[in-house]
């Protein structure tokens, strides 16, 4: 009679050897399946990422629309700038929900806006932030953009910024550009007049301001006229 133990051991080895190609084939197939499914997943993720980006983009646009709506509601240009800055930072901090809650009260104004401009609006806000950081190239960007879009916000912003910085010649120029696009913006006229005073052309400034006061009876314009005449400006 045989000693069965060694024979059984031998058979176990034989079986392993026999099954080896099957295991290898199985492993290869499994590997290929994993690779294939991973590849498909990556593709899907890419598509999902695109969808998310697209959603984000759309959401941003919606938010920007709301931002713009609020901007229109706020009439004063300086106030508007402050609000814009605030809102942009809110967008950046993903606090848009709060904003949308605030702006729900003015739905009619949404319809007035053209959706195409919304992305441009977003870009403006971002660039305004850059401008606040006093980047010269950023000023150039806004100037170039104004030449293409003729957007009074850009021109007015440049006028105020240059005025604040003491560059009165440029402030005068951009106030004039603003006025060319929309002659009813009082702020641009006031910057224009103040710049002329700063540049030493007081009489010219008084003449322009007087004709404006006669036309509009603006209190702010009257106050400025009083200050210029009495050398209190």
């Amino acid at each position, binding site marked *: 009679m045989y000693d069965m133990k060694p*024979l059984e051991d031998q*058979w176990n080895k034989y079986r392993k050897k026999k099954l080896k190609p099957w295991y290898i084939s199985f492993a290869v197939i499994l590997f290929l399946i994993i690779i294939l499914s991973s590849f498909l997943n990556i593709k899907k993720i890419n598509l999902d990422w695109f969808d998310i980006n697209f959603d984000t983009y759309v959401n941003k646009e919606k938010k920007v629309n709301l931002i713009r709506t609020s901007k229109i509601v706020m009439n004063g240009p300086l106030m508007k700038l402050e609000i814009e800055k605030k809102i942009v930072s809110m967008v950046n901090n993903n606090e848009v929900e709060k904003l949308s809650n605030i702006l729900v009260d003015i739905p009619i104004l949404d319809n007035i806006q053209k959706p195409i401009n919304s992305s441009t609006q977003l870009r403006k806000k971002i660039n305004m932030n850059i401008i606040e950081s006093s980047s010269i190239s950023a000023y150039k960007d806004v100037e170039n953009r104004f030449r293409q879009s003729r957007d009074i916000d850009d021109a007015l912003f440049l006028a105020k910024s240059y005025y604040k910085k003491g560059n009165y010649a440029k402030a005068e120029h951009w106030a004039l550009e603003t006025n060319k696009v929309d002659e009813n913006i009082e702020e641009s006229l006031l910057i224009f007049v103040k710049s002329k005073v700063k540049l030493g052309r007081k009489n010219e400034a008084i003449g322009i301001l007087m004709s404006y006061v006669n036309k509009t009876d603006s209190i702010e314009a009257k106050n400025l006229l009083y200050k210029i005449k009495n050398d209190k400006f």
Partner: protein
Amino acid sequence: MKSRYSTAKNVFVDSIDIDDYIELNSSVTAYQQLQHSMDKPLKMILLFGKPGTGKSILLNRIQEKLKHQKEIHYFDTPAVNEKEFFHKLFKVLTEKDLPVNTEVNFSALVDFCKNLRGKREIIILLDEAQMYGSEMMEKIRLLSDTRAVKFVVSLHKTEDEDLIAKEHFQSRIWEVIELKNATKEDQTAYVHKKLLKKNLFEIANSIKDSDMKLIHRFTKGNYRECNKLLFTIFEICEYYDTNEPSKVDYRHIPKKIIEMAALKLGYIYV
């Protein structure tokens, strides 16, 4: 207690016992072919095939069947030397023992045979003829030329033996019978018939077609190898039946056991 596999194991002890002869389609054909050739006026008949294809048992079978009709003699193992062979042949031809201290004169033997022509027809079945030398084979040919003695020469089929066949028999042999390895169907019938002959019906039934496929693959249809493999299979079954009965399925021979037997006999390797 004796295992049921003990008897089954012994069924496959390799032997040329005529009682173990199993009639299969292929063996019946070979038998009829050989018998028909022996009836022809041929001097020599070559029976060849690979070892284990059933040459010896066929010669035994034909001798057993025809011994009462013809003068037929079976020389199983080759003589150690020429002297012994002619002693044996002398006894067959003369039906007398050679006197002590005498030797057979070959020329006298040939003359004796020539005198027998037409009176007697003697058939000598020479098994394992590949073991005879060329000189011996030449003398056998001379004896066959007397037409009183007809030789059925059984050879293993190898390249060398084919050469012997060419050299010694090419011009003289009129009939060549080749035995081949069994087909799966023949081998299945062989195994089942062998077991049923010993009334081992349940065990015969436990060897399924898939098992026979595996057995045929391992043994390449060779009867001797088949006997060896089945002997080993039943020996392993016997061991498990005695020591670890849980490892034996009486309804079916486990594939594991067939492979273990094949490993043991070197048909497969680790």
